[in-house]
């Protein structure tokens, strides 16, 4: 227990009759990059606020760096970037970073190097009001990295960012994790998380319905691989018959197969020779895995 960065045990939060977080338990180790997924209102932000000590829990235990949430020890080692922050537009990026560095008791000129790290060195002396959305988000990220925190909580850090800014954000997250910090981030943009997280938590209606590496979750879900076979004009029917399955769709045939059937099906397709022009292979994406877990949880309920 002592070496967990964050330990959450059977935590429950109710808002009147509504149960926002229901018996959630998980344990994060140093250096892990963990994604917390869930639909709007699944309880992600509520969970974050309890971890930060802003909300009281109605049951269960939370331990942040071995201390109570909201205690000085836990706050000193934790960094947080809320979902949507609007820094005062009258201040410059440099002043914002200095401000938070001082509040955290860190060396403020050292923290200014973070602006370079997030690519804001040129804009450091400009007012935040002139920043684009991506720049503001990066400024928020710079704020979260001040003083080498051990636990970094990011609430939807990539919402509204263009693909390149998003890539930068994940690159930074990777760097933070390499330094031994635990990163817990919530997100809606599922597909971009695939290669960039070690572990996925899925929250559905307040309940934790999945907690594992993406590969394992994929296997657990047992979702089929979808193959799309592009055929020669007019050959779709023949191909569908030969493969013994599939949905015809003009010039293509779609069929699903299990993980273990993948190679066999592919060789069957290649055996068709020049009837086939191309094959697309769709492994179940994080979107599919996510939908599987949150749907099955809802059915149980």
């Amino acid at each position, binding site marked *: 227990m002592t070496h967990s960065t964050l330990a959450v045990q059977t935590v429950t939060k109710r808002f009147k009759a509504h149960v926002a977080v229901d018996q959630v338990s998980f344990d994060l180790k140093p250096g892990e990059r963990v994604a917390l997924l869930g639909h709007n209102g699944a309880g992600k932000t509520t969970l974050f606020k309890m971890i930060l000590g*802003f909300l009281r829990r109605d049951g269960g235990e939370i331990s942040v760096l071995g201390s109570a949430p909201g205690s000085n020890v836990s*706050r000193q080692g934790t960094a*947080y*970037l*809320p979902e*949507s922050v609007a*820094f005062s537009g009258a*201040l410059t990026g440099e002043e914002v970073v200095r*401000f938070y560095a001082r*509040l955290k008791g860190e060396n403020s000129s050292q923290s200014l190097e973070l602006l370079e790290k997030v690519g804001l060195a040129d804009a450091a002396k400009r007012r935040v009001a002139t920043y684009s959305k991506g720049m503001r988000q990066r400024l928020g990220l710079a704020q979260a990295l001040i003083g080498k925190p051990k636990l970094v909580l990011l609430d939807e850090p990539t919402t509204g960012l263009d693909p390149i800014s998003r890539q930068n954000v994940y690159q930074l997250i990777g760097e933070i994790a390499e330094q031994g910090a635990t990163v817990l981030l919530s997100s809606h943009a599922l597909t971009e998380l695939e290669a960039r997280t070690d572990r996925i938590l899925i929250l559905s209606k307040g309940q934790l319905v999945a907690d594992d590496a993406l590969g394992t979750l994929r296997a657990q879900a047992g979702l089929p691989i979808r193959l799309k076979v592009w055929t020669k004009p007019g050959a779709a029917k023949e191909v569908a018959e030969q493969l013994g399955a599939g949905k015809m769709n003009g010039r293509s045939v779609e069929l699903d197969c299990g993980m273990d059937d993948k190679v066999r099906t592919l060789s069957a397709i290649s055996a068709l020779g020049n009837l086939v022009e191309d094959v697309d292979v769709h492994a179940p994406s994080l979107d599919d895995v996510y939908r599987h877990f949150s749907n099955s949880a809802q059915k149980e309920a």
Partner: protein
Amino acid sequence: MLSRILTIAQQEIRIGIRNRWILLATVILAVFSLALALLGSAPAGTLGVDRLTITVASLASLSVYLVPLIALLLAFDAVCGEIERGTLLMTLSCPISRSEFLIGKAVGHTLVLAIALVVGYGLTAVVLLATGTGSLSGLVDFARLIGTSVLLGICFLAIGYVLSALTRQLGTAAALAIAAWLFLVVLYDLALLGALVANPSGVFASQVFPYAVLLNPADAFRLFNLAALGASDLVGGMSGVSETLPFDPALALVSLILFAGIALSASAVLIRRITP
């Protein structure tokens, strides 16, 4: 602790400078006080009373209207505005206590107000001295006016923090702030006056009225300043009351300090209960 309070305070002052709040407040105070001093001094010409003192009496009435307004406008955003922008979440996730946060805000806003008062009113004092119509003894009255104006400002800053901590909507807080100003600065006086006129010699006039004046920081401020000027026969109005008071006018100063302390404590209690 101190460094965190100062960090918050410094940020408030910086924002005050950047968004020209300080400048605006200073200009308003300077324009109104210069107008009162230069244009409104005609009747004092032959009375042989120091022009500075006369001006201070007018400025006391000006302060009663302007200082609470400026203070409330500075303060209403302090808590719910930061909630709305999400910055309170971020600030409070740093190792800073909520009281430190609030004290920092109060120190910053008080300094913003003090700068505006010193420069705005100070300009008027300098102009009067330079034109040879004021004496140095009148400067003491000026200093007292500025000092008590700052105190009055703190009272209304604290009211602003309380209102800001009571609601999550910035618009609601702004409306509440204006309502508080209207009630405490305008309607309260009108109500007292009405009751007094209706029954000038009853129990209300002798027993309730003086204490009702004491309870409202705006009235306590005016009472203390006009009584301290000793120029009641010249400036008229409420100052005539001070001679018939059942207590020492210095009590009005104590009342101001108590009010500021209680309102600040109330806002500190309220901000503890907030989920940012």
